[in-house]
């Protein structure tokens, strides 16, 4: 390259707009590789235009051709919980201050859907499901508490976190009963308990120990099976260590959840992820967002959560049972036998991930609404018994030989 060419090039380059600032280096470098795959349309159009004729590249300040295509920031903005629930309530139980998102039922005959999220999630995990359910069952109430150690629920600082199944079940029952008191209800409305993952174990425990008496119409467990959960626990730590430890912003946290397909529904991630993160202000390093709940610290409780889940799930009499699984049915022996004996309702969403209710809120809502309708005692009309018909004279007893 001659000196002339060099000077020519230099002169021209000076006229170009300053190179764009390097994008902030995200904490999760390994994910960057997937960006282009996630947006095939964007990258494809760029590469095709550049491949067609290099001569047509017109650098302009508005178009950074070789920059990685970035989606508009608003796509990962967080959504306020107010879009999904009517109000939040705080319920004090000794030193623990329980927090829950709540929408009251229209009447005490309308069902109250009570949720319990999984470990590391928050009450807003059910926000999009609630929104979908509200269009299906507008009169129903919705109560989605934050479990202790999660979300806005505050536990005394000096105590170690007790996340044993018994405590969590008592907590859930307390939240429901305290809501009952706070709302001044005469009685509990009919309740459908729905729990995801750990929450599934909690609602099963509540139903199994009859902590809410007769009020439970049915309970649903989302994507947890004792056998496969126990198997998965071994790989859980390596999974947890593979997660990014911190995020630059809430938006990048949401983005990670969507990109890593942990949550496959952006709208749901935008509302459910923000409460999972808490800003780190202690260090002098630039403010980052850390996980609110240290899941590795909950390890001592893992086995306690899931042991005996299948038999408890099957053994509760008088309440409808729903098991909603993602991917394939990974039933353990006990649930497989129970399913083939018709002891509960099994639904499998092959296209959903672990956060079934977030990935496919509409489909889940449809199943849950049907589940409620089937188990609704107030409207249940079964065909008459044969003997009753005979007594009423509507049917001729078979022993009359005429």
């Amino acid at each position, binding site marked *: 390259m001659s000196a002339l060419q060099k000077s020519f090039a230099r002169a021209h380059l000076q006229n170009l707009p300053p190179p764009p600032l390097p994008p902030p280096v995200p904490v999760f470098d390994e994910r960057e590789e997937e960006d282009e795959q996630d947006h095939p349309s964007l990258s494809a159009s760029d590469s095709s235009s550049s491949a067609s004729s290099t001569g047509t590249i017109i650098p302009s300040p508005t178009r950074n051709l070789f920059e990685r295509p970035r989606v508009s920031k608003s796509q990962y903005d967080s959504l306020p919980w107010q879009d999904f629930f009517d109000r939040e309530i705080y319920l004090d139980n000794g030193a623990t201050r329980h927090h829950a998102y709540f929408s009251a039922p229209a009447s005490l005959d309308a069902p109250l859907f009570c949720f319990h999220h999984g470990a590391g999630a928050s009450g807003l995990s059910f926000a999009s499901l609630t929104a979908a359910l509200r269009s299906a069952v507008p009169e129903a109430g919705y109560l989605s508490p934050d479990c202790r150690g999660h979300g806005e629920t505050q536990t005394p600082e000096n105590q170690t976190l007790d996340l044993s199944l018994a405590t969590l079940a008592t907590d859930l029952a307390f939240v429901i009963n305290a809501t009952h008191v706070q709302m001044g209800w005469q009685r509990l409305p009919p309740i459908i308990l729905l729990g995801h993952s750990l929450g599934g174990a909690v609602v099963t425990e509540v139903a199994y120990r009859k902590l809410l008496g007769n009020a439970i119409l049915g309970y649903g467990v989302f994507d947890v099976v004792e056998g496969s959960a126990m198997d998965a626990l071994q790989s859980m730590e390596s999974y947890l260590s593979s997660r990014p430890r911190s995020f630059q912003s809430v938006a990048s946290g949401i983005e990670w959840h969507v990109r890593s397909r942990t949550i496959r529904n952006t709208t749901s991630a935008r509302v459910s992820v923000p409460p999972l993160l808490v800003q780190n202000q202690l260090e002098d390093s630039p403010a980052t967002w850390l996980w609110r709940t240290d899941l590795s610290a909950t390890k001592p409780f893992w086995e306690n959560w899931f042991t005996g889940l299948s038999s408890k799930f099957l053994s509760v009499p008088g309440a409808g049972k729903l098991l909603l699984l993602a991917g394939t049915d990974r039933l353990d022996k006990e649930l497989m*036998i129970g399913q083939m004996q018709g002891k509960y*309702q099994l639904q499998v969403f092959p296209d959903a991930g672990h956060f079934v209710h977030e990935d496919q809120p509409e489909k889940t809502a449809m199943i849950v609404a049907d589940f409620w309708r089937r188990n609704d005692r107030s409207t249940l009309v*079964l065909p008459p018994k044969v003997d009753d018909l005979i007594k009423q004279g509507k049917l001729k007893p078979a022993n009359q030989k005429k």
Partner: protein
Amino acid sequence: MARCAALLRQQMMRPEFLRRAWMSQLNEDGDEEASFSFPSSLIGLERWRLPQEGCVEFDQPRSSIVRSIRDNFEAIEEDATDLAIAQLRACRPIPEPQVRELCYKARELLIEEGNVVTVDAPVTICGDIHGQFHDLMELFRVGGDVPDTNYLFMGDFVDRGFYSLESFLLLLCLKVRYPDRITLIRGNHESRQITTVYGFYDECIRKYGSANVWRYCCEVFDYLALGALILGASTEVPENRMQEKTFDTQTTLPDQESEIECEVLDANGEVREKLFRSQGNMNPASASRKSPAPDRDPAESSSPATTVSQPPTSPSQSNTKPPTASLFQPPSTTTGSLLCVHGGLSPLISTLNAIRLLDRKQEVPHEGAMCDLLWSDPDDIEGWGLSPRGAGFLFGSDIVRHFNHKNDLSMIARAHQLVMEGYKEMFSKQIVTVWSAPNYCYRCGNVAAILELGEDGSHGGCIRRANGSEGRREMVGGSVNSVGDGETTNGSNQNGGGLNAVLWNLATPGRRYRVFEAAPQGTRGMPAKKPVGEYFL
């Protein structure tokens, strides 16, 4: 012409050629239009027409040539189906075009069947298979091979097991090859929606790379009958063919005293338990049942005292019509008929005719009579209950009693529910669950069973009183009322003749259960399928 047919035959026998040949309808006199269509790849012609007389020298009348060609074709067809059966028996899937042919033929056969297929005893009733191909082979080993044994499969051929495709196609091939020897009815897993979730769809994709085969099979599903009515079952336990033929070492030939009502055999034909009709109680295995009810008492709620007061009956004699019976009242008809259905009863169905009126050629709906027939379960309740499955109903003993009475059924056989012992009789033997998938899903540790029924020699003669027509309900003796049961039944027994002899509680047929376990592990070759570690908290 003979040469021509021979040539054709030779062509058709080429193994790579999976023949699809059909003969257009012969005219009444059978000599005009005889045309065949083959795949054009074979002879380069879409349609081949029998040359007119004069074009070719005929050494015999044209009509006889047509007939001989047709016979040849039929033979060839059978040969090809036999080849497919052999291949499937080796657990090797057949090529996609052949599946299409097979499904097409099966549909032609099945469309002719009513919603409730009539099946004559003797027959062996089987429950869920669920793609456990090697266990299906074990079933045929234990129960006898097709076509030596008549089989009735009560649905759920596919899903969950690893060989849904081979199992279903083999059964379908057998159906096409021996239409009178094997009956298939629909289970709740024979549906598009269910198979996409529980494995059959994925298996077709895995084995063929496309969903075409799955689609062909699903079309067949829509044509499967919803139930079967078994006529002419004997009150005696059927003759043990297996013992005579295969197991010459056996010494335990069944008693010929016609007293055995029910016997349970293991996979080798050894008798495990026997129940005699005069006995009040069931054998030890069934003693675990919730209602070890006495022999002929239709009422769940009646006290043991009532039933004990019944004289021991030998219904095979007392129930028969007078020996002077006409052609339509054959003397040897001893039992009512059996209804076989995958799930159970529906509140919308009170007679068999109501089933016959359904439009079955559709995907299994989410509710309604057709859904209930495939989804419901019997349960220890009174009346109807909500099924925890999310589809269908639970039904109690009174429902079964009434339905059986109204439709002159002696029993209902159904599958659908896993029973660890392979079979389970409920509600005083008014209904039995048969389960034929041992160690279900390769992990449940259950045994499987098949139910053999013998023939009573009436050759379906009981059809007249067993067609479920409502009008004759008046003439039926017996009782639905729990209190009066014993006496009325006895009374009818003593009357013992004419139409009044048709009892409320028609004698249950003699039943032989063959219980078998999963095929040995070595023959299974189960694809390793380890679930990946996932986020589960």
